[in-house]
């Protein structure tokens, strides 16, 4: 599925990723953990094509197709979805309008027919119900005046609606209380399937109690410093990131 090899990236000439190599096969959930400033969010933005994040070396492919040469919307149409650490407020655009516009743009890019209004509303209603989102909220401007937890829930709602193949969750647990965390985790777990893969970026182990990873990687100093099974997350929780900080 996702294959990253020797990836180097910089912001304003400052190197952040320094030879990152990572493979996430279909059907698996991989966690990326690491100290603040290690490049976790940079990795998510490089994979999704945000302006200002310049790749200087290396490759990233999804099912063998080069991602780095595609613009952000083309990557989305191929199934790459980023749940933002800080979801944006979009004044004047109701959440449903925003998602439907995105969905139809993706479909158009894949030469598929647009979703009809009744189909879209039906899908939105059932998806909202499963995430315990009040349908009325979807008629309001996206994320405007929403609490941190509501914004994260809206990210998962968009994810469920757009049904991507490769999911990147950037600090999805921040700002969530325990009940909201369970709802969000249930929503994410419902999307696990043999033909999807996920990259869960998190500073804390807590989220991984709810979204169980197959592999855990430590990102420090711009590369993968260590990889292991789920037990690695517990070890990090106990011992912290000090040894990687020193190594970097």
């Amino acid at each position: 599925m996702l294959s990253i090899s020797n990836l180097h990236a910089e912001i304003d000439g400052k190197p952040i990723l320094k030879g990152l190599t990572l493979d996430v096969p279909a059907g698996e959930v991989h966690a990326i953990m690491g100290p603040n400033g290690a490049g976790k969010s940079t990795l998510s933005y490089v994979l999704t094509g945000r302006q200002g994040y310049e790749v200087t070396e290396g490759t990233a492919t999804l099912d063998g197709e080069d991602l780095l040469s595609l613009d952000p919307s083309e990557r989305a149409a191929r199934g790459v979805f980023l749940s933002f650490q800080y979801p944006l407020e979009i004044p004047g655009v109701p959440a449903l309008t925003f998602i439907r516009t995105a969905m139809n743009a993706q479909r158009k890019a894949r030469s598929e027919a647009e979703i009809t209004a009744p189909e879209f509303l039906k899908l939105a209603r059932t998806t909202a119900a499963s995430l315990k989102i009040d349908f009325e909220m979807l008629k309001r401007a996206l994320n405007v005046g929403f609490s941190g937890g509501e914004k994260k829930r809206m990210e998962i709602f968009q994810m469920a609606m757009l049904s991507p193949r490769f999911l990147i969750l950037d600090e999805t647990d921040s700002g969530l209380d325990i009940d909201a965390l369970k709802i969000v985790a249930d929503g994410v777990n419902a999307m696990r399937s043999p033909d999807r893969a996920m990259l869960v970026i998190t500073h804390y182990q807590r989220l991984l109690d709810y979204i169980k990873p197959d592999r855990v990687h430590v990102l420090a100093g711009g590369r993968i410093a260590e990889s292991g099974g789920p037990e690695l997350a517990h070890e990090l929780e106990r011992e912290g990131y000090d040894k990687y900080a020193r190594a970097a």
Partner: protein
Amino acid sequence: MSLAAALKASDVTLLPSKRDEDWKWTDLRGLLRVLPPPSQPFVGEAPVGPFAGLANLPIHVVNASDPVVIRSASAAPYVVALHFAALGGGSHSATAQIELAEGANLILLESYEGDDADYVANLDLKISVGANGRLERIILAADGVNAVSVSTADVTLGAGAQLAQTVLTDGARRQRIETRVAHPGAGASVRLDAAYLLADKRHADLTTVVEHQGVDGTTSQLTKGVVRDQSRGVFQGRIVVAEGADRTDARMGHHALILSDKAEIDAKPELLIFADDVQCAHGNTIGAFDEDALFYAQQRGMPEDVARGLLTEAFVGEVIDRIEHDGAREVAKAWAAKGLGL
């Protein structure tokens, strides 16, 4: 100094110039070395404008120089479409008098259009709304690219009267749409909105003056603009709260997006408060496109042009959503979509 006076006397020295504080960003004297001759009478089928189908009474005039008078006492909402076209060049100046009797309810759908000829058009409106009357006024200005056009409305509101106004414009070579509102009575309420979408070298000046002279008046003002290429938007908003106009609540907002390095916005929001017990606020923001929001929309699958269109339409949409008349709001939505190239 006014365009009307200059046209009447055929004297360019009477044109407003940058020496006049209120005209410093819309200098007509510096622009016009000579005034064009009077427009020729128009022969042919006159255009009816975008609102004719919505009106109880559609009025359309070409190269107007005769006065238009509308008087209404209808308590049920009555819709008048008033369309001014400028065709074939030249200059012309017209007046319109609109009187709402006590308790009358009028929806005035005003529109301007022009061809590509060089023309100079002036329109002076005198509007009075009787006590507890209500006027919703929509102005859709579609002047020609070479036009110099000025529209000035003086509005007087009786006690408890309401004015809800929305100006929509894509500018002209030089264009000014000015609204002056006086609330001498108590408890009058005003909504004074505008949207401008400018491209190429177009210029639009939205100037408003609201004078609260009675108690318990409210003003809610929202202007939004988008400028690109080498266009120039001017917003001058002045709210005066006279001594004794207690419990006035006045809010003014002007927000603009600059989409090119060579486009320009000049804004002057002013609150002049001479009463004690009032609530007044103004907000003015001018900035570039929100690149973070743009990336967010792209990440969800929208190509850049779709994302920009959606976000810009939403930005201007806030003004259009405040239009109460359903038909006019739909015309305004279509106007915005076209102006944004959607």
